[in-house]
């Protein structure tokens, strides 16, 4: 460790600041969506694709077994019929799980602007891995 007393605080890299700003917006939006979606779900403000009672009476089963009995939202299947309380709550979780990918997409141009092609490539590879998961290619 080198410690430098009496110096000004070090400048934070621009890429980090961009990542932080995007993450700030995305995580706040995600938390708001999660709360709103869940309230719409449990208070049944919108119709449900599967009743809460049905979910509760099957939540002791394996996910695959529950899916054989009930049609709970999975992957991107909800896009066909999104206006349901349980689907809205599911969408909020989907959004939260995409947060890191959104932030990485935002910083790739910043890496390229700094002529840091190595990190632009690493960030792009990370986006590709996450996108493969998001699109269900590896599921």
């Amino acid at each position, binding site marked *: 460790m080198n410690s430098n007393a009496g110096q000004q605080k070090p400048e934070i890299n621009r890429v980090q600041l961009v990542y932080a700003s995007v993450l700030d917006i995305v995580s706040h939006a995600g938390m708001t969506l999660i709360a709103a979606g869940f309230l719409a779900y449990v208070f049944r403000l919108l119709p449900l694709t599967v009743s809460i009672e049905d979910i509760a009476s099957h939540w002791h089963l394996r996910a695959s077994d529950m899916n054989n009995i009930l049609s709970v939202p999975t992957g991107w299947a909800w896009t066909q019929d999104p206006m349901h309380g349980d689907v809205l709550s599911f969408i909020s*979780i989907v959004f939260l799980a995409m947060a890191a990918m959104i932030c990485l997409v935002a910083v790739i141009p910043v890496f390229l602007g700094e002529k840091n092609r190595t990190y632009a490539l690493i960030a792009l590879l990370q986006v590709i891995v996450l996108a493969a998961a998001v699109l269900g290619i590896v599921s």
Partner: protein
Amino acid sequence: MTKADGNNIRWFIAAVLLTAIPFFLSPEAVAAPLQAGAETAWWIWVLLLFVFSFFLGIVSVLAGVGGGVLFVPIVGSFFPFHLDFVRGAGLLVALSGALSAGPSLLRKGLADLKLSLPLSLIGSISSIAGAIVGLTMSADSVQLLLGIAIIAIAAIMMKGGKSGYPEVAKQDSISRALGISGSYYEPTIEKIVDWKVHRTPLGLVLFFFIGFIGGMFGMGAGWANVPVLNLLMGAPLKIAVATSGLVLSMNGAAAAWIYIYKGAVLPLIAVPAVGGVMLGSKIGARILSKVNTGSVRIVVIIMMVIAGLRSITKGLGL
């Protein structure tokens, strides 16, 4: 002792006692209300999960562990939800905690993007593999392995050391080529701390295994990320803790999608868990300086051992 200190200690005692409640309930007692009145009991379980997660959030901050590592074994052993859904929720618990703390840690220069990206790239690939393997194994096998893993983690936590500012004499060629180094302002000593890392190749190998375990059991992996970053690679403790969260936000997201596609993420379980742990973490952060974190850590390690043993007996069908 001031009135505020008294309130904080009461919060702490309440958190430990309420987090321990599931340990005093027999599985039969827990399952009975569900079987007797499945149509009306759902909200009781959701409310219990929220309250439990809230106090778990407090305890996990005080013990310096992520919520996910406690959430999965305890909820998986003592609540009526299948382990598939608990692991899906556990990943989201770990992920959301890392996401909410991220912006502030990045702006302070504590979470380092250049340090995290190569590690999370390796870790996210293996966490996807871990999630796929975990969801294809039988529930009993996962429960048994989870129990063994939790007891091993408790042992690591008990024995594991930490180093505030490890000495790194010479960077390895990978970290030098990638420019992995930095500096941050340390207010406790009023100095700028310069840091660099070494042993990056071994770190990358270990992050592959950590990612796999995290994806398989649906746990956050701060318990392993931090020692590897700090003790092995030589990152200062604060950099290790903050950057571990950044790695977790990417690895957790990759594995979470496998659970989402397999239908193992139920909003009815995941949302109260995420909300409870996040609210509890905020309270925990406020009372952190008022309680003896060493004692909390011991209580948490004991809880982990009990949850691990319960998981093993459940996995063996005993």
